[in-house]
Structures are given as structure tokens and as C-alpha cells.
């Protein structure tokens, strides 16, 4: 029961190509992301998280599915909606919440903030606030792998809104022409910030319907089903590692909260949120686990442990000091300093 599954194409699904260990892991990740993001929401309303914060509530399956399919050494790049992708790669809640609360124990000591979560040791090569910027950057990381003959894959997460910016198109063309080992994953949550994506995009599927322009396969998957995400990601990674070039995957999903903490999302049509809550990825996955023979006790244990972890992390962060003042000018340059003159 415990061995990790081999990659199979979706046409020949055996009943348990994924395996319970992997499934339990994906469930754990989704639950922990959910609980941590909810806590982040609460801390924001308590004024302990300042500035802004973009939550991934409802989009946990994409983060968990892809991260589980990745190997250590693979590099991930995401947008400012990046807490989920950071947690999914093994960064502790303390470091993530600490960074959101702008404390010294945070992932970047409060220097970067919510939109720039980075953990080089986990392969989280940055969260990027300028829309589209990280797509060519991911291409560069993939070029390095190709040039040095290294086998890691660069994975690039972005939203539906990104598909209309120049850098998206440059990066896809670039990756396709150089056959780079990079996988582009679009989380289509139906809204580019406050506007429905359909109102600003010339095609129906903002990512998948552009794929053919770059000679790539049109791939659309249910982004709320971690298994589907996992299988598709594995296939794309295998293709990249074999030298066959990039993939573009559009994951259909939905965010439960507004674009950022400032947005109560009143622009949603009535009933839309409720319909998507029915398709909540964690709800789906809980059912999936039971179908594949996990017990209620196992599920409850994961959920209880997640709550414990979030509470423990919150206490640590609340007690953590802010960064010392000399951090103001630290790390502008590689020598750790900031001096521009002698």
C-alpha cells in the first residue's frame, strides 16, 4: 500500500496509481495550507499582519498536487499569491506567518513581505509581485539546468490575468524555441483581480487556448482535484526532464476570498461562491481518501495536527521581535552592505 506510484497516462488509470502515502501527504498539505491561510486572514483583521496579503483559499489542490509531484532540487516560482506554494514545498508555518507579520523570525526577516516569499533552500525561488516577470526568470533557471546538464525542472505558477501581459508571451515562445525544462501552470480562478477574466481575454481559456501559438499542447484540468493535478504535473515534469521541452497547464479553480485583504469581492454574481464551495478541493479530497480506504481517524489526526501546528506557529510569531534596525541597509549588495560611494 505504501509505495509511490509510477507515472501513468490518464487513459489507463488503475485504481491506485497514486498510493495512499502520497494521497495522505496531499491531503495534509491542503489542510495545512487552508488552516494557515485562514489564520493569516484572522491575523490581518487583528492588525498583526500589515500591508497586504493575497490568500489562496480554495486553490490548495494546485499547490499540493504540483509540489508533491516535484522532486527536491526542482525550482518553483510563483506570484504574490504564493503562501500556498511556499508552504507546499515544506517551508514551516512559522517562517511564513512570521514573514507576513513582518517579524525577524520570518522567512526573509520581514524584508520582503507577503508578496515575495522566498526559500532558496526549499527551491522556492521567489514570489513575484510584478505580473509576468517570473515567467522569463523561470526560463532562465531552466536554461541553467539545460546548459549544465542538470535534471531539475523549473515550475512557474501564475494566474489567468498573467496570460495577457507581454512577458507571458515572450517567455512561452522563448521556452518553446529553446526547448527548456520549464512547466508553466496557470491557476485560472476566473478573475483577473476584480474583473472576470472573460471580459479582458480574447479567447475562452486564457492559457490553454494560447498554447498552440507556441506549439504546445492544450491542457485543461480540474484544479480542485489534487489527483488530477498530481498526475498531469508528473507527466509534464517527465517530458521536461527528458529534454522534450516546456508544457502549459491550465487548472480551473476558484478563490474563496477577495483578490487581497482589501477586497470583499462584491463583484461575484450571486450563487457563484456557493457553487464553488460545493467543489471545495478539501471536501473533494476527504471523500477521495475515504473511497481509497483511509480511515476517519487518519483524517481527523491530520486535521487536528494542522490546527495544533497553526496555533503553535502563531504563538511563536506573536512573541517574535521585529528585525533589528541595521537590517534597513543590509543586503543591498552582495557584500551585505549598501554603500554606493567611497
Amino acid at each position, binding site marked *: 500500500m505504501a509505495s509511490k506510484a509510477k507515472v501513468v497516462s490518464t487513459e489507463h488509470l488503475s485504481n491506485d496509481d497514486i498510493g495512499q502515502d502520497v494521497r495522505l501527504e496531499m491531503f495534509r498539505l491542503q489542510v495545512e495550507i487552508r488552516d494557515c491561510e485562514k489564520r493569516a486572514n484572522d491575523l490581518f483583521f487583528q492588525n498583526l499582519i500589515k500591508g497586504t496579503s493575497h490568500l489562496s483559499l480554495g486553490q490548495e489542490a494546485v499547490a499540493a498536487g504540483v509540489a508533491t509531484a516535484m522532486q527536491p532540487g526542482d525550482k518553483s516560482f510563483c506570484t504574490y499569491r504564493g503562501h500556498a506554494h511556499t508552504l507546499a514545498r515544506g517551508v514551516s508555518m512559522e517562517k511564513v506567518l512570521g514573514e507576513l507579520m513582518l517579524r525577524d523570525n520570518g522567512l526573509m526577516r520581514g524584508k520582503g513581505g507577503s508578496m515575495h516569499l522566498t526559500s532558496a533552500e526549499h527551491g522556492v525561488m521567489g514570489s*513575484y509581485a510584478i505580473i509576468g516577470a517570473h515567467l*522569463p526568470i523561470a526560463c*532562465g533557471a531552466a536554461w*541553467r539546468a539545460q*546548459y549544465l546538464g542538470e535534471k531539475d525542472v523549473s515550475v512557474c505558477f501564475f494566474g489567468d490575468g498573467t496570460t495577457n501581459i507581454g*512577458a507571458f508571451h515572450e517567455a512561452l515562445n522563448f521556452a518553446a*524555441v529553446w526547448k527548456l525544462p520549464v512547466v508553466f501552470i496557470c491557476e485560472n480562478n476566473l478573475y483577473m483581480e476584480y474583473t472576470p477574466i472573460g471580459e479582458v481575454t480574447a479567447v475562452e481559456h486564457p492559457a490553454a487556448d494560447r498554447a498552440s501559438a507556441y506549439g504546445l499542447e492544450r491542457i485543461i484540468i480540474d484544479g480542485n482535484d489534487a489527483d488530477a493535478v498530481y498526475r498531469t504535473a508528473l507527466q509534464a515534469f517527465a517530458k521536461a526532464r527528458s529534454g522534450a521541452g516546456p508544457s502549459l497547464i491550465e487548472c480551473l479553480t476558484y478563490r474563496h476570498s477577495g483578490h487581497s485583504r482589501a477586497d470583499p469581492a462584491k463583484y461575484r454574481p450571486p450563487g457563484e461562491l456557493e457553487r464553488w464551495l460545493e467543489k471545495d478541493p478539501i471536501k473533494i479530497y476527504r471523500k477521495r481518501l475515504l473511497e481509497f480506504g483511509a480511515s476517519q481517524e487518519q483524517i481527523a489526526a491530520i486535521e487536528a495536527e494542522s490546527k495544533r501546528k497553526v496555533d503553535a506557529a502563531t504563538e511563536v510569531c506573536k512573541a517574535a521581535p521585529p528585525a533589528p534596525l541595521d537590517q534597513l541597509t*543590509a543586503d543591498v549588495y552582495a557584500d551585505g552592505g549598501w554603500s554606493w560611494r567611497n
Partner: protein
Amino acid sequence: MAELTYRDAVTRAIAQEMERDTKVVFLGEDVAKAGGVFKATVGLYERFGGLRVRDTPISEQAILGAAMGAAMTGLRPIAEIMFSDFAAVCFDFIANEFPKLRYMTAGQLGCPLVVRTGNGGGVRFGAQHSQSIENWTMMIPGLKVVAPSSPVDVIGLMAAAVRDDNPVIFHEHKSLYAVKGEVPEGEIVDTLGTAKILRPGKDATIVALALMVPRALEAAQTLATEHGIDCEVIDVRSLVPLDTNTILSSVAKTGRLFTVEENPRLCGWGAEIASIVADEAFWDLDGPIVRITTPHIPLPAADHLEDLALPNAPRIVERISRVMNGSAR
């Protein structure tokens, strides 16, 4: 000692670094098989192969983004932006991505790359292919900025830039590509952040950059022989880090400062130096600081108009001699 053109010095500099370190790679538009539109990278593709010297699509954002991703994960890329005016097309990477990465990640990631670009006017290409944009890059915290004026400095400063772990913007000058200069044999490595006194003098300090350096030297010669004004000419070479010590020591000696800048007037690099000198060396000044610059206009294509716009030796002589009342110490 050999004589080398500035453009051949670019090729030699890149080759020197690529020979030394296999992590140095090079990408840009038409740089590989065609050897670059200015023929400044001829032979690199043949020598180092298509995996290390790569032609890209016309995608400035992808070029700089890819350079950054490669630099972040272990390579030391050199990226070309063909005309420096095009920096505006990929300015997000120059202003927001390269220079802020290390700071925002509290030192976890860095960006050891070089962006080399053809800067400046005098080649009749018109307003969007002729501007001097070194001041655009000087003002961004986290970058280093150099602009060599001679073939030997091209090699020394390029080597220093490639070996530096920070993002460095390397402004080559289009009008200097054909200029020849003496270059010693062997490896040449200079130091960023160092200015050079090319002509010592005691009556006034002239600070210049890139194409303006030979023009300032020519003007200094005329000022000495025809006006009795003995000028010290400093090639700034590096805008960031800035060698303020050399400039301040010079002004302490002469009491007068003039800058010769090709960028359009407002917020040109000389304004910053004038400000530092007016502050820190106030009590060394015997007269006003004067900046000699291109007017604040887009550049015309017409040759006689473009020549009028960029500071030249006669204009520099006229301005300095008029301001100093023709009297030496």
C-alpha cells in the same frame, strides 16, 4: 602592447571571461551567428559554441528575465540589450527585479549578471536609438553601473563586472566602437568604483564619462595652450559605486568643478556629483559648479543637428573659459 578597437576589446573581454569560467554564458539578439549588429561579438559563437553563446528572439524581457533566472541558480550570464534605449522595454527587470532580489530575500538569492548595451549618440540613428541612458541606471539602488571610454577599460571593467556578484549595467558607446587604443597582452582585470585622472591639472577639475572623455581631453589641451587654464580631467568610469574620493580630492586641489555629460540635462549623472561636491566640498569651491550637457531634447537624426546637441570640444572650451573669466590662478 597591441592596438585594438573598442569593439574588438568587447569581444576580447567576453572571451577572456568565458575562457576563465565555464559558468559565464552570453545571450542576445543576433549576437551569436551574426557576431552582433555592431560586430562587437564576432567569433564568440565559433569559439565557445551554441550552448554558451545564444541568439534569442526579439524579446528583451525574456532576455533579461532568463539572464536573471540563470544567474540566480548558478550561472554568470552576460546579456546584450542591443541599443540602450531598449532598456525601457525591459525596465522591469533592471529596476524591479535584479536590484531588489537580494534585499527582499534577506540575502538568500543574488543576481551575478552583466547587461551590456550600446549607449549614446553620434551615429545618426535618431531619437530612439541614440540616447545616453546611464543616468536611468545610476538612480536604481542595488545596481552597479560602468561606462568605459577606451578599449583597455572595456576589457578591465568587463572582467570586473563579470566577476562581481551584483547585477552590473555595462554601457558601451556606439560612437567609440571604431576607436583604437593601446591594450597590453594577457589578462586584464580592473576594479569597479574607481575613477581615473587622465590629465592632472591645477586650475579646474573636469569630470567626464564615455564619449565625453576624449572630448574633454581635447578641450583641456586647448584650454591649456590657448587660455592658460590647466585642467585636471577625470574619467569617472563607474557611476555606481562612485569614486567620490578621487573627485573630492581633485576639487580640493583646484577649487573648480565642471562636468561633461552626454545624457539630456535633467537628472543627468553630473547633477548627482555636483550635489555631492557642493555639499561635502563646499568650502573648497572657488566658483560655481557648471554642468556641460546635451540639451533636454530628444535627439535629431540630422547629422549637423546631432553634432550641435552633444557636447563637443569647442563648446567645452568656450564654456569653461568664459566661466573662469579666462584667468588662471
